[in-house]
């Protein structure tokens, strides 16, 4: 009874994305590939924020770890892109673990500021080592270095399918995670930390584990982003990129597996549209943040799930 519906829904979304590979016009094709990669980042953010209740303002550090972990390896060490991708994932996870060891001694507002500061330090570090990273200007990764085995990531079609594959893996792992016993504990920690402690769970280790998984996702997204789109720049590790996944997650629905993707999709096209009619697209981001916290703190899927009552959770874990 339980689980099959949710699985069907998520597989359906993946099937739809596969169909779009053949149907979508070139412009949207590229956009959706980008959105899927960014959605992996947002999923990672959601594991920390949506499920475990850790509101971080510094995830750009973890995205940047993947981005630069992979980018610097292929650019300076001529590493194989596959190896670089794995290195990027691990860099995200390791940095999340290290930051968590310190930041998780705080909670709430202090946690937000500590993560913000760490991310800022990371961003400045990228600028400081400008001779390797080329700072704000960034590194363009040559086409020859963007080969995932025999797959050429600079080819539009290949890139889409690789993005879809990574996205599918991330999505299904996310689904499995939140329905596992550990997923239940993450939510318990978000709902009532004191209660969870008195059921025998160590809040620190639970949160550290969740944050590390979140870091692995962010690292994967960053690494894939750099390799697929061939650019690695400090702007992608700036504070804007900490706000971005938060925005996606808030819009799509915090604590839902599909929410990050839906939020990324809508926000991407909203900003894309806004940029085409005015140059005030930052306004859209700001207004979206304010309106969401004011009027729809659960986001789209969170609201739908709440309306659907007990059945909601069967479809949208």
């Amino acid at each position: 009874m339980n689980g099959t519906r949710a699985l069907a829904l998520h597989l359906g979304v993946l099937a739809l994305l596969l169909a779009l590979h053949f149907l979508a016009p070139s412009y949207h094709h590229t956009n959706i590939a980008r959105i899927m990669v960014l959605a992996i980042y947002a999923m990672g953010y959601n594991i920390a924020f949506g499920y475990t209740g850790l509101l971080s303002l510094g995830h750009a550090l973890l995205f940047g770890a993947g981005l630069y972990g992979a980018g610097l390896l292929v650019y300076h060490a001529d590493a194989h892109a596959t190896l670089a991708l794995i290195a990027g994932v691990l860099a995200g996870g390791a940095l999340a673990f290290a930051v968590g060891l310190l930041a998780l001694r705080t909670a709430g507002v202090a946690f937000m500021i500590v993560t913000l500061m760490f991310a800022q330090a990371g961003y400045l570090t990228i600028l400081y080592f400008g001779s390797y990273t080329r700072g704000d200007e960034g590194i363009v990764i040559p086409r020859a270095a963007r080969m995932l085995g025999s797959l050429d990531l600079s080819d539009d079609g290949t890139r889409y399918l690789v993005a879809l594959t990574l996205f599918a893996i991330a999505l299904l792992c996310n689904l499995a995670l939140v329905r596992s016993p550990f997923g239940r504990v993450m939510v318990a920690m978000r709902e009532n930390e004191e209660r969870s402690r008195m059921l025998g769970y160590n809040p620190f280790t639970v949160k550290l584990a969740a944050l590390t998984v979140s870091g692995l996702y962010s690292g994967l997204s960053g690494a894939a982003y750099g390799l697929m789109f061939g650019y690695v720049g400090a702007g992608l590790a700036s504070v804007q990129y900490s706000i971005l996944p938060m925005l996606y997650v808030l819009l799509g629905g915090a604590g839902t597996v599909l929410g990050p993707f839906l939020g990324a999709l809508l926000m991407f096209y909203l900003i894309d549209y806004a940029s085409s009619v005015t140059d005030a697209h930052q306004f859209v981001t700001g207004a979206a943040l304010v309106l969401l916290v004011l009027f729809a703190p659960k986001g789209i899927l969170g609201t739908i799930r709440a309306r659907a009552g007990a059945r909601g959770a069967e479809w949208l874990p």
Partner: protein
Amino acid sequence: MEFGPFLLLALMEGLVTAAVLALTASGLSLVFGIMRVVNVAHGAFFMLGAVLAWFTAQWVPGPPAVAFAVALIVCPLIVGAIAALADTAILKRLNYEPEATIVATIGLLYILEQAALSLFGPDARPVPAPFNIRLQLPWFGYSGYKLAVVAAAIIVLLGVWLILKHTRAGLVMRATQIDRDTARAFGINVDRVYAGVFAMGAGLAAIAAVLIVPIQQAHYLMGGDPLLLSFIVVIIGGLGSLRGTLVAALLIGLSDGVISTFFAPTLAKIIATLVVALVLVFRPQGLFGTRTT
């Protein structure tokens, strides 16, 4: 230049930084202390003050000193009014729930920066100083205006202190800080106090910006550094403690002046942000506060 005069110059520059920083950070500290709100848009209010000062300089005829005087009064009022509006329209509706409030002020930051970009443009624009006096020291000349900035900051901060300690408004603010519900029960209009405090915090940032803009130029992205530095100062000084904030501003401002004269500013910033993070982790009461729990 020899080392001694060089250091003196660095210290004087640091003093100016410290003065402006103390003003900006005390606004942030005030808002956090009384409302428990972490205002991420504080830097945007600072920027708004500077940008408005430029507009004032364009519109007010006569010598620069007149326009400057008008700006010093009008800009903080406008910025304060915008802040009060944001408080009533947004923060109050969120019931000042800490995390939602932070997200909302991030949104506010984007909106204000966009507004400045659209109305003011992407360029940095200078605002003339009200006067140009150079003090000739034995080793170098120094801008008299910069010293006036220090004096003005001290006067404003004294004013804030007087308001908080010796007026009814200050009493009401402190009562609200201690216990919002009790204050309300005693007939204090807490909503008005909050709007007022938020406006005052933003206004202080705007005053700081008007003072600095003849030295620094107005730009729509200029709020980032003051925000970061204010955070650093407020946290090192102990969240919500005004006295700690002032001490920390002096410390950071002076060392910033000295450090960035001798070291790469990026490295200094990296170290500063890391120090702040570690202070929050290991000494959340700040370096100068005492632990209350």
